[in-house]
């Protein structure tokens, strides 16, 4: 077993279970329970999923966390070597395409001059959602119909651009908490909800790792998974405390009520079980982004969670 386990978290409410694991030292606790009290736990934070992937692939990171999209792409690319799989889901959250333009009510209302800001335009989760929506609306072969409207801007810049009306941006496809900040402003409304596209709740963030680490360090792997489970259960049982912990962790500038409301939002699930990951991955395979086609959700995740009710 390794003497040090490294985990990554990123910024945002979707990573709340990791925040709890970090702050409450749940991994240490589970390691101790597993008889690995000497294992050092190191937390990193990355500004982007691709940096976390680099770290994972260079062997510096054992557990990466991020969007479902990058995780599935990494799974696809590592079939023949390090065999990355999902460890567990983190959270399901809707991603909203919001607009400040009153005439844009559905995606059919976009014209050539209506740009849509999104992070990682062309490859991000939001891109895939929008392509799925387009495929649904205009047929599978037209899934790229809205691609020409996508404009690449990081989430905060995209939101700012829309709210301030600069650069002609009036719509943005974004994530929590940005979409809720946006909806707080007058005139901003939802054009598209990722849940509607997927037909229900859909895993937005997950944790993944390499098969090599798991087989070489089964106890450590199990301890981390258990810690994640403990954190998730605790959040679901104590939303108020979880919100307080989150606010404290990020510097105490946000309102606890606002965070608690989000945690209690019935649309937001903190669960280890993947939700609608398979259809998402199969769509990516359909449009050629993935070379390998997963036939069951269990193809994408390590066996430790195969007993959960995933999809």
């Amino acid at each position, binding site marked *: 077993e390794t003497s040090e386990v490294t985990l990554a978290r990123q910024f945002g409410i979707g990573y709340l279970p990791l925040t709890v694991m970090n702050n409450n030292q749940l991994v240490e606790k589970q390691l101790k329970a597993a008889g690995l009290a000497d294992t050092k736990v190191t937390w990193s934070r990355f*500004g*982007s999923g691709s940096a976390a992937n680099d770290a994972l692939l*260079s062997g510096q990171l054992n557990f990466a966390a991020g969007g479902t999209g990058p995780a599935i792409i990494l799974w696809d690319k590592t079939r023949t070597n390090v065999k990355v799989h999902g460890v567990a889901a983190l959270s399901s959250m809707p991603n909203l395409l919001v607009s400040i333009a009153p005439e844009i009510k559905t995606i059919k209302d976009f014209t050539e001059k209506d740009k849509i800001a999104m992070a990682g335009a062309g490859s991000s989760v939001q891109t895939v959602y929008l392509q799925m929506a387009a495929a649904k609306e205009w047929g599978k072969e037209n899934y790229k119909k809205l691609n020409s409207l996508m404009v690449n801007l990081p989430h*905060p810049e995209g939101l700012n651009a829309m709210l301030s009306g600069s650069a002609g941006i009036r719509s943005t496809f974004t994530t929590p908490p940005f979409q809720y900040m946006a909806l707080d402003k007058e005139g901003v409304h939802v054009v598209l909800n990722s849940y509607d596209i997927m037909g229900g709740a859909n895993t937005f963030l997950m944790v993944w790792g390499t098969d090599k680490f798991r087989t070489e360090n089964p106890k450590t792997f199990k301890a981390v998974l258990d810690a994640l489970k403990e954190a998730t259960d605790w959040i679901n049982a104590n939303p108020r405390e979880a919100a307080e912990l989150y606010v404290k962790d990020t*510097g105490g500038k*946000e309102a606890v009520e606002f965070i608690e409301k989000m945690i209690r939002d019935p649309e937001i699930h903190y669960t280890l079980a993947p939700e609608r990951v398979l259809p998402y991955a199969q769509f990516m395979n359909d449009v050629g982004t993935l070379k390998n086609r997963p036939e069951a959700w269990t193809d994408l995740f390590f066996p430790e969670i195969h007993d959960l009710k995933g999809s």
Partner: protein
Amino acid sequence: MPDSIEMRRPRPEVHYEPIASESFGIVEKPLSAWERVSNIGGIRKLFILVVLAVIWQVYANNLNNPLIFPTFVDTVRALFEGIASGGLLLKAWTSIRVLLVGYAVGIALAALLTVLAITTRIGTDILETLTAMFNPLPAIALLPLALIWFGLGEGSLVFVLVHSVLWAVALNTHSGFLSVSPTLRMVGRNYGLGGFRYVWRILIPAAFASILSGLKIGWAFAWRTLIAAELVFGVSSGSGGLGWFIYQNKNMLEIPSVFAGLFMVILIGLFVENVIFNSLEKCTIRRWGMQS
């Protein structure tokens, strides 16, 4: 005929009795109060800074879009809040520490490369080729290798910092070396100096003006790179530096704090330029009459 002009006006010869130079007294040209004030560089610069701050305030007020561009006053307020509560100074110090390490290593490597370049012909080719190849590469290109070689944490940050300091400093230093006057080089070699001593005793002081601007550019680009890299690399321990502070506040749409972080960078830049680099210039190239 040729001397007609002189012939026209015979002038008397004149003799003077020179006085001893001790009895001159001190001669100074009197200056008006305005001249005296405007002769102080610090006051002129302060004036410029005040003008810039006023422009910022007025423009931001007119723009009236605090999510994009907060006013100067709001930024300063956020700066003080950040310092008082948010440990902004600590974060700045974290960044500066990493920066100084990267800067020092970068300069040392630049010295090594340029010494090699100036003493051997293949060294010149290596320096020119490496600079042309690697200098245009963005820090992100180095990330994978940095992770393999240095792991998470500061090692990798230092690596990208070195990348952004090394080439600029090496380029300027090498060009400075090549521009040293042939006479000075011959003098140095006349003394029997060779290799490192020749570079250290002759070429470096002789090319100091070029080296200094290389150092200034390297310093600035180290900051740029550090802040950009902290966003990507994130933090592996502790609370991160200024770049992470900016990134986090941006994500929370705390725009005045974002600008407070950037303002901190500006303040550090002004300090380094006006205190460190300026004094260095004064006791070297200015004092030596190598730059006016």
